[in-house]
């Protein structure tokens, strides 16, 4: 992994996922390790983000590294019409590692080709966000004690949600059974279902999850956005079906945990927050440990 960019979740093998998770576990035990002394990490956020940027910066700070960069593109030469190619060519002279979020898809792959230092993709449009997937894997292993043979429920927008697609690709390495719960308009795309079939993995599709929720080990919630519906009436009819309430958790397995990439709007009712089964805020904290692991392994410090 040393000196290799992390652009897409498929850039890493199963063994490499596990190496990152083991390292993250180490950082959870000892979050402050001054191994990044003298290193500079550039965080280039051409598009605003709260959690991702702050958790990357927190990870660098806890490792004793220095950060330069920007939190939105309006203060950069991009507004003067500078190309991404030129921005990256310049910034890689100033930093040992680039963390980038950009609204255009494929921008991170391109940046990794132009840059002389490794690039971590912190989200390229609707395409990839591999550090999110790795922290999802970490949260699953952390709460279930394993990654193999779990029932993963994915709920909400399964058509456009990049996090569920990447998580599906990653979890397909661990004999997962998938339950897809979504309205018709936002179903899991065929290419992913075909992929699971080729991998000989089981998956089920439902429009509603109240009857089957007690099968779940992990419930991965996503936002159902109004603008995704071609028919507003359909949205009004279905929006409440995909809201998780604490009452629904009554009969669920004791080990079940609820994950959400955040930000949430209303798809997880506030009364779930106090449940032991709610894990989304800890999941966000895990993001720091996982990003410490990614950064230190790419820089060859671990």
């Amino acid at each position, binding site marked *: 992994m040393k000196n290799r960019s992390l652009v897409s979740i498929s850039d890493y093998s199963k063994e490499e996922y596990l190496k990152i998770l083991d390292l993250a576990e180490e950082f959870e035990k000892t979050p402050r390790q001054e191994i990044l002394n003298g290193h500079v990490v550039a965080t280039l956020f051409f598009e605003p983000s709260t959690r991702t940027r702050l958790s990357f910066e927190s990870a660098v700070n806890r490792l004793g590294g220095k950060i330069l960069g920007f939190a939105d593109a309006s203060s950069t030469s991009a507004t003067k019409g500078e190309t*991404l190619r030129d921005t990256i060519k310049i910034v890689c002279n100033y930093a040992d590692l680039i963390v980038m979020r950009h609204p255009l*898809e494929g921008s991170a*792959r391109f940046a990794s080709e132009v840059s002389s230092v490794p690039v971590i993709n912190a989200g390229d449009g609707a395409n990839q966000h591999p550090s999110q997937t790795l922290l999802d894997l970490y949260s699953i292993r952390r709460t279930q004690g394993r990654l193999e043979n779990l029932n993963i429920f994915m709920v909400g927008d399964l058509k456009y949600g990049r996090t569920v697609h990447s998580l599906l690709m990653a979890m397909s390495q661990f004999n997962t059974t998938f339950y897809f719960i979504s309205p018709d308009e936002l179903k899991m795309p065929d290419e992913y279902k075909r992929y699971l079939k080729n991998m000989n993995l089981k998956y089920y599709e439902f429009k509603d999850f109240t009857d089957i929720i007690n099968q779940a080990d992990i419930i991965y919630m996503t936002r159902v956005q109004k603008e995704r519906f071609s028919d507003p009436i359909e949205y009004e009819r279905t929006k409440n079906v995909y809201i998780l309430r604490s009452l629904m958790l009554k009969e669920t397995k004791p080990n079940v945990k609820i994950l959400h990439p955040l930000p949430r709007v209303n798809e997880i009712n506030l009364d779930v927050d106090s449940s032991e089964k709610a894990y989304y805020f800890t999941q966000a904290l895990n993001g720091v440990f996982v990003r410490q692991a990614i950064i230190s392994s790419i820089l060859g410090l671990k």
Partner: protein
Amino acid sequence: MKDIKHLVVSAIKEGTVIDHIPAKDLFKVISILGLDHIENQVTFGSNLDSKKLGKKAIIKISGLFFRNEDINKIALVAPEAKLNIIKNYNVVEKKVVEVPDSITGIAKCVNPKCITNNEEIVTRFTVVDKKKVILKCYYCEKITNQDNMRII
């Protein structure tokens, strides 16, 4: 019939004949192979009758022989094309076009939010299905298929 065809686009002594090009894609093939920038004699005919394609085009290039990887570039627009290698007015070899494993710089990515459509970047695709010619963008990872493919 055969003789009439020969009259339409006259025979060459040495070189390559590319036959069974869909008539509408003739100029794309010319541009992909760079035939608009060469010094060799090039003759072509378009909208010729074809049982297979309806209307087809044919190109004859004197004194030029293609490498397989070059000729395979036209697979995106003329997958049925056939090549005859001509020496001394005789066909000495026949070749068919094969869809390559990857394609660089010929097609445009269908995704308007792809970096390749917003900055000057040579496109790159892996061919995920050779029969249906389905391409996956190396950058944005989106699928471009024959229905929405545009040649640069």
